């Protein structure tokens, strides 16, 4: 699921007037460049149709980019968008509205899954075709000047596109990680104010920290009185893992809830004792079923066998 929009990226990339000014300075975009491009707008309009056609010729000729353009209706719509984009280079402005417009284009391309290399390659073709049109109408000196101004703006655009792609990738990684974390810490509500966390797999420090945070959040949100952590499925319980579990237990206690550790094997019992942990205040059980029973007695309930069908 995608939640971001191009305006989110405006914020993420901190594209405010300060950042804009700093980028413009760095790319050397001056008013003279923008004036020069604005003066070329009539020329751009005259050549626009053939440049766009040439541009799409490249895209349709190449098998990998053709895959993105399999729908003739889509191509027509894209050509419309492309014309606006192309003429935007000759508007003679480079303000926040322009940046937002460029960011939206980068965002859309990333969203349809167009790899950055095709984006950049296509842009290169764009410059090539535009250069040809300039040479046809202008003298060599004016062509060079126009191309330099255009190049500045094109690189400025490209930087925005790359930033958008990178920000989107970071988003994707974060979403995947959140999904994995959620799966690795499946807190279940087994009864009113009693939660159960069955832990499975390997626990390293990063996961231990995330487990502690999730447990604390859930205890607090659901006002749980008891958190049962079942460690029967944890591959290795060494002193470090035991230490992490005890920290989580201590943190849950600070919130005012109790932790019951279940699934304690003989080997785990040995490790905990060897750690020299004060177990007088700890609730532990070998079997999960016994842990649940203990949890219910801690919240003042018990399983009523008679009401069961």
């Amino acid at each position, binding site marked *: 699921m995608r939640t971001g929009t191009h305006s989110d990226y405006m914020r993420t990339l901190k594209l405010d007037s300060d950042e804009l000014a700093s980028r413009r300075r760095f790319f050397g975009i001056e008013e003279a460049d923008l004036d020069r491009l604005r003066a070329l707008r009539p020329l751009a309009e005259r050549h626009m149709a053939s440049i766009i056609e040439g541009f799409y010729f490249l895209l349709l000729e190449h098998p990998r980019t053709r895959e993105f353009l399999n729908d003739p209706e889509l191509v027509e719509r894209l050509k419309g968008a492309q014309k606006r984009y192309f003429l935007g280079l000759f508007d003679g402005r480079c303000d926040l509205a322009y940046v937002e417009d460029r960011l939206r284009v980068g965002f859309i391309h990333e969203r349809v899954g167009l790899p950055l290399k095709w984006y950049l390659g296509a842009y290169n073709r764009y410059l090539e075709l535009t250069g040809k049109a300039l040479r046809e109408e202008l003298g060599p000196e004016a062509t060079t000047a126009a191309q330099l101004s255009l190049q500045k703006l094109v690189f400025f655009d490209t930087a925005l596109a790359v930033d958008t792609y990178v920000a989107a990738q970071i988003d994707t990684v974060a979403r995947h990680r959140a999904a994995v974390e959620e799966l690795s810490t499946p807190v279940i509500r087994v009864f009113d104010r009693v939660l159960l966390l069955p832990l499975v797999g390997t626990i390293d420090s990063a996961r231990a920290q995330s487990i502690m945070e999730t447990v*604390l959040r859930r*205890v*607090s949100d659901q006002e749980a009185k008891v958190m049962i952590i079942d460690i029967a499925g944890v591959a290795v319980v060494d002193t470090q893992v035991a230490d992490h579990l005890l920290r*989580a237990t201590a*943190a849950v206690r*600070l*919130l*005012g809830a109790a932790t019951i550790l279940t699934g304690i094997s003989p080997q785990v019992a040995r490790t905990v004792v060897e750690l020299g942990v004060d177990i007088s205040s700890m609730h532990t059980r070998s079997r999960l079923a016994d842990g649940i029973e203990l949890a219910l007695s801690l919240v003042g309930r018990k399983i009523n066998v008679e009401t069961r069908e």
Partner: protein
Amino acid sequence: MSASGIPVIRIRNTLLSAIQGDLSDQVAEAFQQHLLTRIEATGASGVLLDISALEIVDTYVARVLVDTAKMARLMGARTVLVGMRPEVAATLINMGNGLDGLETALNVDDGLDHLGTLRSG
């Protein structure tokens, strides 16, 4: 109300105080003083300290809380700390500070229940 600006309310034989906002060292100490005076004046047997509004509990504030509970205990009042935020708990534990000996509860309701159990026990 006292120099600390933190109100201490009496409900039957329990004193309830919700610690608000930014707890500076002076405020923490003034509050401790005020609370002990109120225990003396009311003969309260229980104290509930609601810290749900506290976003930061550093070592200093933690020690003031633990010390206050100990002092209250010496004066005959049991203290229960209620409503600690998850991020505050994680931070304290990561610093190696488990507020040893301090009773805790999730909210004021649970805290009152807990004090009831302590009194009858």
